């Protein structure tokens, strides 16, 4: 093996799946060695920026939000054309054509089933349910620099007559109705799990994949898409410009979109497949956005508008909500 590509991507169960299933298959097929640089989206984005002009990484995998920013900052090269791209759902393609979503999860509401049963509460069914005073200091929402939190903000704006272009109602709703319920604005998934496990939190706005992972530990966690609709959160990959192994990098991205890898990621890591041709057995479909119907129901947010306003929103968020 003379060629090595560096892939920067998430740690945790995703890393396990990649190392055990996706990467070995790729290495076997191509003879290219893959080094896995683990880190969360923000860390990896920061690494890209730090090594700007001197990149050590060939492929980066980020949440769709940060990926938009990475593209904007010029950290992504154009994707090479390949047949596999034709098999993808629409939401997989990103407007710029420099990155591709290879998996999707939905943002919805997670709650502690046992707690709800014991306290005779009805499970949440609407985004509005998180405003219920019964959840005083029992609700956790990631902050808006995290996609889940951003989705929640956008949804609150939409439900109150606004939207990406008119975010004010969302802020107002958070400030007046949601804030009293919020135990913490917690971005770290680990911390979130811990808050559930220690019973400090019973409801949260979170992703389907995270909820699945939590439930898989045996914890009585349940996940619902609110009736107004869940929001799709993509995981995207792109090739770093100036990579010495651009072809291999592109091949790796294509490999991840292929049926085999898509199935592995769905089964082991809870990523909804973006490849239409993937078929999952019924028992593996639980908790994963799967199939045209489910995927179609998921709402998509307008990243262009969001990114244009993100700085302002962030500032406003830290000053008005997180204070």
């Amino acid at each position, binding site marked *: 093996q003379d060629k090595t590509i*560096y892939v920067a991507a*998430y*740690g*945790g*169960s*995703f*890393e396990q799946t990649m190392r055990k299933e996706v990467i070995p298959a790729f290495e076997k097929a191509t003879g290219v060695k893959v*080094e*896995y*640089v*683990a*880190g*969360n989206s923000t*860390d990896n984005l*920061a*690494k890209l920026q*730090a*090594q700007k002009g*001197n990149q*050590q990484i060939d492929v980066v995998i980020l949440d769709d939000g940060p990926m938009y920013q990475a593209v904007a900052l010029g950290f992504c090269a154009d994707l090479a054309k390949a047949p596999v791209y034709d098999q993808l759902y629409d939401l997989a393609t990103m407007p710029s054509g420099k990155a591709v979503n290879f998996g999707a999860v939905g943002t919805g509401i997670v709650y502690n089933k046992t707690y709800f049963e014991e306290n005779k509460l009805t499970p949440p069914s609407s985004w509005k349910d998180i405003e219920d005073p019964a959840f005083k200091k029992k609700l956790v929402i990631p902050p808006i620099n995290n996609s889940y939190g951003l989705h929640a903000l956008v949804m609150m704006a939409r439900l109150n007559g606004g939207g990406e272009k008119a975010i004010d109602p969302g802020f107002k709703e958070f400030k007046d109705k949601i804030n009293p319920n919020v135990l913490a604005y917690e971005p*770290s*998934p*680990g*911390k979130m*799990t*811990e808050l559930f*496990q*220690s019973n400090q939190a019973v409801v949260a706005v979170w992703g389907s*994949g*995270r909820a699945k*992972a*939590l439930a*898989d*530990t*045996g*914890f009585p966690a349940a996940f619902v898409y609110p009736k107004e609709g869940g929001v799709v959160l993509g995981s995207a990959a792109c090739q770093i410009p100036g990579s010495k192994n651009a072809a291999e990098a592109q091949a790796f991205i294509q490999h991840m979109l292929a049926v085999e890898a898509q199935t592995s990621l769905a089964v082991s890591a809870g990523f909804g497949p973006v490849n239409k041709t993937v078929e999952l057995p019924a028992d593996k479909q639980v908790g994963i956005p799967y199939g045209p119907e489910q995927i179609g129901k998921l709402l998509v947010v307008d990243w262009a508008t969001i990114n244009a306003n993100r700085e302002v929103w962030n500032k406003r968020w830290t000053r008005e909500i997180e204070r």
Partner: protein
Amino acid sequence: MNRNGPLALIFNALFLGFLLAPILVVCAVAFTPDGYLSLPTKGVSLRWFKAIGDNPEFVRAFKDSLLLGVASSTLAIIVAVPAALAIARHKFPGREAVQALFLSPLMVPHIVLGIAFLRFFTQIGLGGTFVGLVLSHVVIILPFALRLILAASTGMDRSIENAAASLGASAWTSFRRVTLPLILPGVASGWVLAFINSFDEVTMTVFIASPETTTLPVRLFLYIQDNIDPLVAAVSALLIFMTVAAMLVLDRVYGLERLLVGRGRD
């Protein structure tokens, strides 16, 4: 003999209790049979300790961390001892500036250092190397080593060193045979603090560790990306047990008392 009064012993007990409480909780959690953190646990099981064995990258990361900790804290001590002696013994122009310089790593958030080191190392070609990792760790743990050695060596009786010189000991010998043993408790605790801080560092290391040189805290940090489970507690508990074992061995071989208290003292 000045013994501790009952009040002092109560204080001691409360203090140690305070220090131990969260650790005991973590250790207790490590034995849970459940798949998630819960207290009190429903039973006792070693499943999470077994799980460590299933994650070979933890073992590798542990070795890397150990090596990194030992290398960087030893280097830090080697640099800190003469500097501490200079600061403790001499009043020279620039003394305060030197002190501030050596202390500044403590005052910068590690995330900032992490990014700065990453940028710097990438430019000088040390990016992702073990050497770079060690050097950056030396810099951030230097203050611990320095301050502790400084505390031990300010106000030391100079006539004892004079005695050594009068018996023919060169500066180096006198340092090795007299000064060093006398400040050994400070050096030892300085080393321990430095080691621990290097061993524990994650915020900065995340950025400068490469796939080949990933430390245990970084591994743990990545592991709890999407899920926190009792494995983290088990790793911590295991570390504690290993530390205790190491201490016992050290006590047998060298004598803890001698190391932390110094020879010939009561």
